[in-house]
């Protein structure tokens, strides 16, 4: 990514504040725009306020754990890709997170390049899904425009942006 390109908007949540700070800074140097939250509730609040491409979520947190955060984020933000980070990887938790819609699952400690690779793939996946959605809408609009009234076409155009993140 060059400076000219849009930065990837990343929401990171981890209760290990030092770790959160270091990863946020490193990703900031790699053209990510990072919003950091040190608990699940803050992350959900931040996700409601801004638009994010990817969320990087710690699995074990007090109060609201990573699987709960994952469930809520995926329910409210259809196109947000969620990557799970954990210091306590088990096959069961990896399967559960995948079933809940996590894009990938990374165990701490990891190589930073590994993290960058996962985030890159998650971003590409998000773009592809949004592109496919837009393409389908365009096709629907083309079909509609052939036999519909100008008002029906206008209504369809207004519905194009439904605010889905």
């Amino acid at each position, binding site marked *: 990514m060059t400076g000219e390109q849009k930065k990837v908007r990343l929401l990171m949540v981890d*209760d*290990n504040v*030092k*770790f959160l700070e*270091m*990863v946020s*800074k*490193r990703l900031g*140097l790699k053209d990510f725009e990072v919003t950091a939250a040190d608990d699940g509730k803050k992350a959900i609040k931040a996700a409601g306020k801004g638009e994010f491409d990817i969320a990087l979520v710690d699995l*074990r*947190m*007090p*109060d609201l754990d990573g699987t709960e955060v994952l469930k809520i984020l995926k329910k409210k933000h259809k196109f947000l890709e969620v990557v799970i980070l954990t*210091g*306590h990887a088990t096959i069961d938790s990896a399967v559960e997170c995948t079933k809940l819609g996590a894009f990938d699952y990374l*165990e*701490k*400690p*990891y190589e*930073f390049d590994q993290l960058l690779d996962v985030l890159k793939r998650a971003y590409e996946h998000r773009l592809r899904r949004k592109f496919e959605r837009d393409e389908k809408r365009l096709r629907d609009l083309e079909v509609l425009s052939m036999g519909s009234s100008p008002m029906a076409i206008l209504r369809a155009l207004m519905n194009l942006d439904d605010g889905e993140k």
Partner: protein
Amino acid sequence: MSAAPGAEGEGLLFLGKATAVISHSIKNVMATVSETAGLLGDLVALAEREPRRMDLKELGTLGETIVEEIQRGFQVVQLLNKLAHSGDQPVADVDVEEAVAVVSSLGRCLAYCSGITRLPSAGEHPRIHTRPLLLHDLLFRALDAAFRAVGPDGEVKVGVERGADGVSISVHGLPAGFRGIFESPSVELLKQALQARVLLDREAGVLRLVLPERIGEARA
């Protein structure tokens, strides 16, 4: 420990759980050290390309963070060491204050039970002759149950005092609805092996583990 085979199994389960908790903490420390060292490297590489961007203060702060994290890692490893040695002898003299400190540190490794405060002690460190591993297990169960009741932002206070009937460890700050954990068969095994009494004062929100000065050999 042949006289308490069921309890011995509980002790092993506890060691397994404690080891998992501690390894999680160590991984967190290593992940933070790795990322801090990585950021240090990123900033140095950046400064090589753009010397004006060199921020010596920030580099120094990152170095300090690495040292602090390594110290934290040492403490976690010391905790692991103490817990591992609690199984060296089935029955031994135990410093109860020390046992409470070890289990409190283990609790702090868990995100949901970090708010543990120690009540000031009378100065002495009561020692009892008991089963060290099983004592740690019972104490951890008490703290775990307490934090599940008060919630992750809650706080419990732990005190140790010598009384007429032995040494008691009290957990204060429990909510009115606290039901205790002491109805399960595994806790019953621990209580029997430690000859401990568990008292719950619901009104005061205090759970008390009363331990004899010396467990009877017949029941040991």
